[in-house]
């Protein structure tokens, strides 16, 4: 099982613990990842607000590179997934795709429309299969209560994300939580916005969103939150102390990247999963599952 790997910017920047954790669990799952070192940022929806055609062209360039490798794309970032899916949805229009391809011609690239970018979350369910994942669980996270946090880009808009063809995508994260032996803590905020996109624009609102979702999950008895989005992770983890101060209450809810939780259940060490790089301490939950704290 081989994929063209699209890790996104944040897993190599502000969340450097994600990239190695994802690579390690993919290795265990028998997923071979071929890097695309020249593939650009997707634009994250930010570039698109300045120029959608430009964003779509950059994504078509990445899609064309994957087509040249004859490999499907695997990403570990929900925002990248959403932005690529939206671009790919627009690029179904042949006239539009032809126009975009004129910008790629000089580099000798052409997007033929065959890319199907998939987040690791979906790859696990749709390609690897939960049975395979279960067979690799050596340290089930029994007794651990995990709140799923999808964020926005991997759940909306459902048309571009092809939810009609893949209804299993609606509760994919809950299925992963159950497969690794933990208990799902369902809460209303799981598909709401983490506030990251407006962090530097309206910090008060951004912190209110962090405080609202983490408090809600914490009050429902969650030991940790699990997310497939590194941007959500940045806001929910790095800015949680600030959000708690604004909310005027303690929160202290560890936020796990999805691959970290899976890695722990596979028996990988907390250090290998980068759990010491978290701002909200992961020690209490590691003690709870008997994995010991990250050094």
């Amino acid at each position, binding site marked *: 099982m081989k994929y063209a790997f699209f890790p996104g910017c944040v897993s190599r920047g502000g969340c450097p613990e994600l990239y190695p954790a994802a690579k390690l669990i993919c290795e265990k799952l028998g997923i071979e990842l071929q890097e695309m070192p020249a593939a650009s940022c997707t634009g994250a929806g930010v570039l698109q607000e300045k120029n959608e055609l430009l964003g779509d062209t*950059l994504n078509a360039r990445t899609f064309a590179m994957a087509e040249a490798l004859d490999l499907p794309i695997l990403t570990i970032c929900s925002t990248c997934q959403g932005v690529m899916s939206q671009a790919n949805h627009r690029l179904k229009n042949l006239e539009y795709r032809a126009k975009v391809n004129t910008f790629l011609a000089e580099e000798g690239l052409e997007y033929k429309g065959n890319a199907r970018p998939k987040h690791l979350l979906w790859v696990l369910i749709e390609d690897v299969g939960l049975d395979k994942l279960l067979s690799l669980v050596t340290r089930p996270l029994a007794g651990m209560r995990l709140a799923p946090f999808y964020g926005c880009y991997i759940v909306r808009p459902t048309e571009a994300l092809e939810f009609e063809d893949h209804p299993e995508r609606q509760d994919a994260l809950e299925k992963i939580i159950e497969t690794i032996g933990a208990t799902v803590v369902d809460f209303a905020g799981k598909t709401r916005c983490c506030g990251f996109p407006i962090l530097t624009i309206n910090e008060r609102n951004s912190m209110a969103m962090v405080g609202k979702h983490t408090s809600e999950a914490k009050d429902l008895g969650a030991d940790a939150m699990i997310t497939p989005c590194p941007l959500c992770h940045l806001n929910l983890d*790095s800015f949680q102390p600030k959000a708690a101060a604004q909310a005027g209450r303690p929160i202290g809810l560890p936020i796990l990247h999805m691959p970290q939780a899976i890695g722990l259940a596979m028996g990988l060490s907390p250090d290998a999963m980068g759990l010491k790089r978290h701002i909200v301490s992961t020690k209490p939950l590691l003690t709870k599952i008997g994995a010991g704290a990250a050094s």
Partner: protein
Amino acid sequence: MDVKLRVQRFDPEAADPKPYWEDFTAAIEDNGTVLDALIKIREDTDGTFSLRCSCRSSICGSCAVRINGHAGLACKTQAKDMLVDGVITIEPAGNMPVIKDLVVNFDGFWDKIMQVEPYLKPEGPEPEAEYIASNEAMLHLSDVTSCIMCGSCFSDCTVLEVDPSFLGPAALAKAYRFTADPRDGDENGVSKDRLEELNKPSGMWDCTRCMECVQACPKSVAPMDRIMAMRDQALQAGFHNTNGARHTEAFSDSVEHSGWLDELRLVPKSVGMTNITALVGYAPIAIQAITHGKMPPIIHKKLPQSKNIRKIFDKVEGPEQR
């Protein structure tokens, strides 16, 4: 078929007025809508059950409620598609105070619509007869003008949930309907005064791009897409002095010059390199990132072949594409 519904109710005249849940079963046609089931409850089970509805054809916009947690028109939603473990959960629309059961107070919604002055404001000399706009100049507005003011987008807006001062998706989409109208604004159709207002706090830059409004809208208005297009209009009209505008420009510059995001420099460039107060405010977060090994790379390396990315920027952003 019999449909089970779990409905959130509220009676303002109760001794202790609080929202509460009540379960109902409604007998409707197999292809019946959620609204059919709600009307059946009111007519056959409990005459005190309150809801708004009128056209039953997704035209009037009266029956927006939350169905399984997400806003939509009850009359446009087939009941059989919404069963989750055999039950449909119904709540009143969000971000508006509940008057009774599923009836909410739209005052806040209308205040925001009025705030964006939802009418043409041409600034140039008056034409001798009517204002003429070509089909080509108006066709792209057909989706945004189809808004039926149902409040679905307003209900599910994640920013309004934490900040009632935000203009919100419906009003901002309505504003775009005028900023993108060639008859509005100056002789070139640029609505500079409007954009200046919308560029202020609680306006276009406060949208968090969560797409809840795009998902909730029953009429393809896609409010968030309009807000994004309006941000481009604001940048084109020369409004660069906001954190939002600086963030977009800094992000774009980073991708143009290196191919990927320079996170380390994005924050200071967004809040303004001379905004000492804001920069000092981020210092504890930066120190925390360093001590936890989460600092983005100080030397931001360019991707291989990044010159090809720059060329794409030149071509796509060139004057002939605008």
